[in-house]
């Protein structure tokens, strides 16, 4: 019987990321779904299933931190790995304070992501 791989959801408005990241995360042994916006993710049926969220910070419409807030409000504690192209120290700190597992700066190495995923799944 095939063990169901845990679902990791990638939310990023950037197309490059949505194309490349899922394949890498699959290599790590997870199953992956990609969404182009926070709204899309919230409206999807993956919401309940997602064991870990890889989330872009800056997005038009609902931002990454805003989604984080929304999930807290909804009582969903999904571990979040933030990824961002902007080196905003204050923002980074804030998101970590809000309970994010990690905040990676693009471009990040595969090892950095691997370790972040380990932390996310170990804690849960």
């Amino acid at each position, binding site marked *: 019987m095939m063990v169901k791989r845990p679902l990791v959801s990638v939310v990023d*408005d*950037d*197309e*490059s*990321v949505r*194309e*490349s*990241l899922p*394949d*890498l995360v699959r*290599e790590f042994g997870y199953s992956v779904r990609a969404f*182009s916006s926070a709204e899309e993710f919230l409206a999807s049926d993956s919401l309940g299933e997602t064991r870990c969220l890889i989330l872009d910070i*800056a997005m*038009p419409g609902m*931002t990454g931190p805003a989604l984080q807030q929304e999930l807290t409000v909804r009582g969903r504690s999904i571990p979040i790995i933030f*990824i961002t*192209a*902007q*080196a*905003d120290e204050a*923002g980074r700190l804030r998101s970590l304070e809000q309970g994010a597992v990690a905040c990676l700066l*693009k*471009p*990040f*190495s*595969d090892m950095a992501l691997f370790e972040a995923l380990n932390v996310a799944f170990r804690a849960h």
Partner: protein
Amino acid sequence: MTSAAVSCSPGRRVDSLPPRHRESTTSAAEDRAATSAGLGIAEVAAMLGGLIRQGRPLPLVLTTMCQLFDATVKGFSSIVLVLDRTGARVRNAAGPSLPTGYMKQLEGRRVSWIETASGATINGKTPVIVLDPVSDNLPESQKSTAAAASALRLHEVSPILSLTGEPLGIFAVYQHDGNHNVTRCHSALIQQFTQLASAAIERMRSERRAALLERTQQLSSTWCFSWHVETDEISCSREFCQLFGLDPADVPVTLELIGARIHSEDLPPFHEMIETAQSGVSDFEFELRLRLPDNSIKYLRVVAHRTRDQEGQLEYIGAVQDVTQRRRTEEALATLRAELAQAARVTSLGVLTAAIAHEVNQPLAGIVTNASTCRRMLAVNPPDVEGARETTRRTIRDAERASEIIKRVRALFCKKGATSESLDLNDVTREVVALALSELERNEVIVRTELAGELPPVQADRIQLQQVILNLVLNASDAMNGVDDRPRQLLIRTERDEEDRVRLSVRDTGVGFEPQGVDRLFNAFYTTKINGMGIGLSVSRSIIESHKGRLWATPNDDSGATFSFSVPCGPRHVSNGVTGAQRLGARVSAVTSAEERPMRSP
């Protein structure tokens, strides 16, 4: 200064002397008999005339005159006072026979003119003044010299007048020895001397005027000339010649000679101007460039007034001014303005750099991720070659995407002329929002857009319009810095404007501005930002105006301000090959391959 004039006491009047207006008809013997030096009036006059003609300094001439008089007319001493231009003060005083102290204190004294009771004036029009060492009000310190002078009795006073009747000076005669009398020929001498003094003073004044003219010409780099049209001859100064790089020895100066110096490009308008001038129609004024033998360039400004010379022939009198320095400054200023405009684009660099980094990091992240995946796929047994191939394809595509971004950025910052294309203002707006998004988010600004559907295209330079919209958006964001009591809202709206135009407005809820301060906002150097250069709005306005549009600002009713511009609609179709928007970043929803996307040449 106390007034030197006083009413005269009748006893001193000229009535006791033979009337001066009578022609001097002395015999030579009478003449010589009366003089102690043995010189005749004619000879004395000739001597003085010679001094004047030789251009001797005025003080020398007048002192000599007095000396000659004093030597000639026994028992009498003379003084000559030169008046200033107003005729109200003594400028210089010559009086070799009188005490120096007395002479000195005469200088600078106010002179007033009074009517005389009797009509014993030279020409019936000018009143006569009276000076008296005895009755004059002198300060204590000078009373001793006055006492010495009081041994003299004022005998006679003659005004020295110009040819036009202006008072130039005063010739006064004092008697120091009562044993002598003034004879008729002495009176004639006084008359002669008065006239000579008049000539000398007039000469001095005209020399002074000429010197002043010379000096002012030099100061203002302006040189006068006159141009006799018929003979084409030009009268001018040496410096005028030098201005044109001509040798002053090359007389006469003609238009032809000058024409040889004129910049070849300015020759046709020059000839045209001359032709018009030769018809004597009106005054003229123009600017032109010279190219001198040493290849240097001078800018000249010429102003000329049409007139007739003394023979009634057409003549122009005018001035030529060397405005090279001014033109060079203006050119430098224009260059500086262009550079500032360039700098204005670069001012957004800080923000742009962040935006660029952001944009470039996306494909870079893709490259790293894809390559990492590729490596892993090849490391398993058996290797996932198909997967590796796919990640490699994506890697190449992302690299090209990054390269494209750099190209676009280069295009933004290279100094090239404006290119025009048919644009959808909505697309341009979306690009700018994408660019500025991170900055806006950092400033916690909520962006909303209300972009009209079916917006007609505009014919414009894409980069320039991006610059303008970015400028407005960033300004709006800055205006909301520090606003805490209300949401920081930015609204960008596009719509059709009347008469076939398209309008874009950027509305904020920031600090706003006073309606009367609106002009200042667009001033090239006005800024409220600490590190701002304040050039953005001024340059934005000129960009819009160069697109035949209009940029303006109005304060909002509630809070903040709205900056809007409207530009005319362009041709109906959007140029093909551009699918909706050429994006600076990679935030596209549809993937297009690099070959499909047209490359803009930097």
